[in-house]
Every structure is written in C-alpha cells, then in structure tokens.
C-alpha cells in the first residue's frame, strides 16, 4: 500500500526477529497509525518468528526466503527490495541500527535516489512530513532532518524507541513476492565467531558496564564480567583501556567506538573524556565510580561514588545478587 511504513527485519540468523524489532515496529505503528508491514530477507524464517512480527503490530510480512540471502550481501539484497519498493511504493522504510542495516539502507537510498537518516533517536510527523532527530558529532549536537521525497529511509538507534507490546493472537498476512535473486559477488570464505562472553551485545544491551584506565590492567575486567553476569549487562571499555591493549576495540565505547544508549550505564575508573561521553551520554541513567572527585564523568552522572572501584565492584555485585535473588 502506498501509505505503508516498512520495517526491515533484523534476525538472529536462526529464523527469529531480534527484540529490537519490537522498537522499530512500535515506532512505525505510532507514526503510520497502523499501516505497518515487515520486510524479511532471510535464508530461514520460522513460524514463531512470523507470529512474533504479527503480535508486535505488522499487518503483513513480505517474506523473501532463499539460501542466497545469507550471509547478508548488499548486492543481493538491495535490488530485491528496490524492486519491491517500485511495485509497492511504501511511504517509509525503517530499520534498526545494526552492522548490515547500516550498509543496506545507505545503498538502498542511493539506488532509490532518496534520503537516509541514520541512527535516529527521534521521529515525528510534522503535518504530513516526517522529521528525524539524529545525533551528530558523536552526540555532541542533535540535527533535525527532513526528506525531500518518499520513501523516507531511516535507521533507529536501539533502546531509544518504545517497544510495541506484543498482542497475542494478532497475526500478520504473509506474502511471498516472486522476485529475481541477483547473483552474489562476495564469496563467503568462513565465519569466525568471537569467543562469547555470554553477556549481551554492547549496542543492544539494556545495561552497560564500562571499565576505564582505573581498571589498571586486562586481568581485572573479570570483576566487571561477574557483575555483568548478575545484572545481565554488556561490558565495554574506554578508549584509554582499549589503546592500552586491555580490551579488544570492539568493546570500545565512545566517538571512535560504539555509541550506546542503554537504560543504565555504570562506569568504573572512567574519567569521562569528551570523546567517551559522546558515546554514552544519551544513556538514561548514568552511574560513575571513580577515586578522583574531579573526574569529568561526575558532571553528567546521575549517581556517583567517589571511591576505589576495587572496593566498590565486589560489594556492588553482592548487593545486586541479594536484590535480584529476592
């Protein structure tokens, strides 16, 4: 339908949409007033996954299934979705910020000749136009952007938009359009899995713990991981800690690392350099623990403790354990 808001489905590569899709579909429903459809390109979609999209509010699922669609490759996905756009003329296409949506949406925007607002933290209708709010300069400023024409393309930062409440029994119609699947140019050699920490992914986690220079060495991160295990948090690091070689750079939070907006951020031994603050200042609640009462991070923290983190962390772990075991 020409007024539909499309949501690009991000899945766990095993046939189930990621939880962040509840946020994307929830926001699309709020903006579109209900005319929301999911677009799912995958090598495997489960019935449960389709049911989940319906319960979150998708009225229809455009399902394009094929072995060639995984792993994600832009040159395979973009022509398929562009063809579907030409036939269906959606009003908007939204997706979560993930490694593949970042590239896919940019390339799709170029193919369609339309604007893409990446990493939006706010979307609102102004009359019959969409206005997006996105952080720039790593979150030091906010830019409000508009689109010259439809479809409006945007990616949404995880943990910012209110997720849709699942409505049990609400179902989506499934449509399998016949499309040409282009040949892949990228040939997969192998996939190297990272050693799993068993903790959530940094950018998607609702709680993030960060260790800075005050951690004193790589061996000490284990105490943060223990705490993370208790409260279900991802564990990241400041640039100082990453540059010292204590943590791999994929854990870096800040302007040249990951930008995060968790519900709760806990920084230990993090001083709060501008470039670190830029990567986490949109967190909802910020806790800082640092020996130095002058550390800049205290200026943006909701709660601060001026003390040695090596005293605080074990006690905090015990206290959370007691609380959460209740």
């Amino acid at each position: 339908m020409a007024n539909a808001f499309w949501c690009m489905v991000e899945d766990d590569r095993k046939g189930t949409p990621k939880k962040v899709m509840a946020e994307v579909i929830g926001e699309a429903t709020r903006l579109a007033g209900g005319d929301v459809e999911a677009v799912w390109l995958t090598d495997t979609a489960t019935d449960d996954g389709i049911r989940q999209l319906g319960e979150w509010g998708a009225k229809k699922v455009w399902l394009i299934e094929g072995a060639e669609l995984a792993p994600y490759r832009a040159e395979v996905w973009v022509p398929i979705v562009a063809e579907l756009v030409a036939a269906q003329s959606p009003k908007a296409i939204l997706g979560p910020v993930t490694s593949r949506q970042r590239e896919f949406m940019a390339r799709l925007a170029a193919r369609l000749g339309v604007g893409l607002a990446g990493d939006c933290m706010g979307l609102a209708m102004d009359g019959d136009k969409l206005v997006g709010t996105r952080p720039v300069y790593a979150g030091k400023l906010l830019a409000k952007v508009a689109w010259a024409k439809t479809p409006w393309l945007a990616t949404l930062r995880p943990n910012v938009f209110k997720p849709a409440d699942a409505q049990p029994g609400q179902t989506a119609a499934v449509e399998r359009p016949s499309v040409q699947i282009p040949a892949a140019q990228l040939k997969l050699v192998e996939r190297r899995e990272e050693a799993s920490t068993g903790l959530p992914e940094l950018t998607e986690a609702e709680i993030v713990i960060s260790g800075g220079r005050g951690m004193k060495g790589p061996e000490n991160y284990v105490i943060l991981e223990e705490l993370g295990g208790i409260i279900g948090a991802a564990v990241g690091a400041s640039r100082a800690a990453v540059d010292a070689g204590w943590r791999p750079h994929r854990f870096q939070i800040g302007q040249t690392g990951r930008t995060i907006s968790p519900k709760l951020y806990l920084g230990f031994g993090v001083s709060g350099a501008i470039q670190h603050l830029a990567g986490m200042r949109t967190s909802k609640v910020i806790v800082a623990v640092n020996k130095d009462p002058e550390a800049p991070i205290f200026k943006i923290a909701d709660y601060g403790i001026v003390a040695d983190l090596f005293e605080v962390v074990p006690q905090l772990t015990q206290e959370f354990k007691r609380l959460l075991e209740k």
Partner: protein
Amino acid sequence: MKIAVLVKQVPDTATQMKVAGTAKAIETAGITWIVSPYDEYAVEEALRIREKRGQVEVVVMSLGPDRVKEALRSCLAMGADRAVHVNDPALAEADTLMAARALAAVIKQEAPDLVLTGRQAIDDDMGAVPAQVAEILGWPCAYWIMEEAIADDGKTVRIGRQVEGGLEIFDVPMPAVLSAQKGLNEPRYPTLKGIMGAKKKEIKDVKASDLGLAAEAPQLPVVALEALPPRPPGRIIPGDVATAVKELVRSLREEAKAI
C-alpha cells in the same frame, strides 16, 4: 595498481561543538580540524598495500572548502602520492548522496582498482557514503573491515568484516569499496621528510562542472541543529563504601527504576 582513499576533514574529537547563529550549521571559529580517524586507517592500509606490492599509486580524495587542503596535505605527508580536492560552493550543503555522487564521479575519472575509506566520518556519523559510492559505481562493497589481503593476481581482495558476534571473511572481486573499522591497522605519523615532501605533491582542484554533476538539492536537508538538552544534576552518594553501595542499589531500584 591504483588505490583511491576517500577522506573527510572533521573537527577534532576533543572539540566542544556549538551551533552557529543560523541554527543550521556549526560554529567553526576555534575548531581544530583533523582527518576523520577512520579515514586514517584507510590511508594507512593503502600505504601498506603499496609497500607490500610496489607499483601502487595512492590517490586521496576529499570534498569540502579550502581548509580541506590541510587534511589532504597530511595524508600526502603520511605517504599518499597525490590528491584530488572537490572544491565547489555548489556542494557546500551536500548530503551523503550528493557527496557520494561527486566522489563517485572522481573515482570514475581516476579508475582505481580499489577504494578505501573510513567506516564513517565522525561529524555527521552517517556512514552512508561508502555504500552509496559503491551503488553509484555498481561495485561490490564491504563494511567495517578488520583485515584485508589482495590476491597476487590483483583481481580479488579477501576481507574480514565485523558483524555482531564475529567476523565474516569474504573474497570480493575488484574494483570494490571497503570501509575501515578501528583495528585494521595502526596509522603512522608523518615524518619530517614526509611533511616536507608533501608540499611538492599535487593537489588537483575540481569543480562540480568538471565532474559533469547536475545541480541538485539535498535529499535530506538539515532543518535545524540543536545543542543536547542538559542532563539533570546528579548526586554524589556520601558515606563509606558499604553504605554508599547499598544506597546506590536502593536508588537504582526505587528512584531510577533502572534495575
């Protein structure tokens, strides 16, 4: 072999950004400009390819006003061979798509075997230009690469791209566009000799008309630029560690409802 590196000049990461009077642009007074850090990984990787293979020309390309010459000059000081500067007021308000069209047009003229750039410029943080350049050229593209090795025959490049939970290794036919993630390498500092030598290297100025670009308006105009709303003041929890920890957990549970 020829490698093109796309770079952008951005404010230094330690800069406090302010909004200009027009509320659509930044206040540029007092800004220290740098090459966007991710783009430096791209420059470094191109130089390493040249050192490994020999017979490689490294051409840096950038879009922006006169001050961008400084950024190009520092890439030349690192060791790039020459530079192309798209310098045209008609592109002053370019969005990612306009920038991508301009850079793709330069790339078409230069016909490199590989295009390297950073995963995003740390001003707009959009990260769209690499994919859009690739789309306009009809080339394959890989984002957030952590490693790269060009095959001996120079026809494919093996890359590792960072995705959630791991690294995907692909063989990519060339020419292709690759965007660099932190960790790809450690960029070198220019030597004094490099800095002196850079003064003699060519920076070619081109205009939109040289590239056959039609005048166009941005697809994603900026309506307004705003400072971040200040965070409400927080509090330092007093007392010994045991007391403070208990009070913190209570506050997170009862006041902030964050856990």
